[in-house]
């Protein structure tokens, strides 16, 4: 039985209306807080109802029914006459209460909608950014002037690192993929350089290889309309350099 044992007997008495005094007060206080005991009380009342249902006897006289039906006919279900305040005042308060209820309900709905809209906007922004990135990648890959630069090591090793840069001058877009890169010294990173036809090399992104020696640079910030003669890679401090630090470890020209 799911009921607090100390209240068991008092609950039975209470269900029969036989509990009184401080015991009754104490139990009523407990019932306000205890759903389990409230449920048990319902069941005990049901048990008591079984006791009531064992009663039997003559049916009520026929006039009892006609008396009831007469009373019902005289009494509508809604009883505005019992309200002493003028009807318009009562209706006014009722309308105000309804308006407050409606306003609170609408405010809550509005809060929920605002929250939903904010969440959807955030998702949409992320989708747009992701979509824009994909569109830019596709544009560069399919640009008429897109040229690939195969970047080879200056000193050849058994598993030579390699890199491929796809660059579109018109779109100032660059995608660079590398593999078999050598691990870096501490606090160092690779830096990719766009070597223009004229002028100094332009920084084109920092990168570190993963455990398998692979790395990627997608659309680094680049000045617009620069024609590339070659791409080069140097090892630089992690924060990057504005001019390449020799030696150049990899380099490739367009073709």
């Amino acid at each position, binding site marked *: 039985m799911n009921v607090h044992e100390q209240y068991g007997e*008092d609950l*039975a*008495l209470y269900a029969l209306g*036989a509990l009184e005094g401080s015991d009754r007060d104490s139990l009523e206080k407990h019932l306000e807080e205890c759903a389990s005991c409230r449920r048990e009380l*319902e*069941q*005990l009342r049901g048990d008591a109802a079984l006791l009531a249902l064992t009663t039997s006897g003559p049916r*009520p006289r026929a006039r*009892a029914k006609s008396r*009831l039906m007469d009373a019902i006919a005289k009494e509508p279900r809604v009883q505005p006459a019992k309200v002493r305040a003028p009807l318009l005042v009562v209706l006014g308060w009722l309308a105000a209460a309804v308006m407050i209820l409606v306003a609170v309900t609408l405010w809550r709905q509005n809060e929920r909608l605002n929250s939903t809209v904010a969440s959807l906007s955030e998702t949409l922004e992320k989708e747009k950014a992701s979509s824009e990135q994909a569109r830019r990648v596709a544009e560069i890959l399919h640009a008429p002037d897109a040229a690939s630069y195969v970047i080879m090591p200056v000193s050849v090793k058994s598993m030579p690192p390699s890199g491929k840069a796809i660059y579109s001058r018109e779109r100032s877009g660059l995608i660079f993929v590398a593999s078999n890169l050598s691990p870096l010294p501490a606090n160092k990173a690779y830096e990719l350089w766009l070597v223009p036809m004229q002028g100094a090399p332009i920084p084109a992104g920092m990168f570190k290889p993963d455990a398998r020696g692979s790395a990627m640079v997608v659309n680094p910030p680049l000045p617009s309309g620069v024609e590339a003669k070659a791409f080069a890679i140097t090892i630089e401090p992690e924060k990057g350099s504005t001019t390449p630090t020799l030696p150049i470890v990899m380099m490739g020209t367009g073709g």
Partner: protein
Amino acid sequence: MAQLYDRYSSVVYAVALRVLADAAAAEDVLQDVFMQLWRNPGAFDASRGNLAPWLAVITRNRAVDVLRKRRPQTEITETLVSVEPDLASEADRGRNVEKVRAVLKEMPAPQRSALEMAYFEGYSHSEIAEKTKEPLGTIKTRIRTGLMLLRKAVEAT
């Protein structure tokens, strides 16, 4: 309401008559109970039980209030009654009532008397203890175990 009356008035009247032992007073309670149901049809929560036991409890409470010449002690909307198994149909009700009657018949007289004094005569537990000259704790235990016996009677298949 006429249909409800035809179906349940005998239950209501029997309970009221059992408590009050007076036909006119029982008819007054019958009238009062059905008028309350008419005025406040939402008082009965159909999802929490069925009408016959609920009406029986409401009627008993009103009748005891009349018997003890006191103001109504409970609101009908506050009275939740849960009975298992379902007693919706008259056949189910009849079958289970017979089981309860059998248990009452087998019950020790002091226990049955304690239950009836509390339920049909409206005595408090201390009044019952005083009248029967039994300890208060004994009365409490008798009433609780008595109700449990009634529950077991209808729960048994």
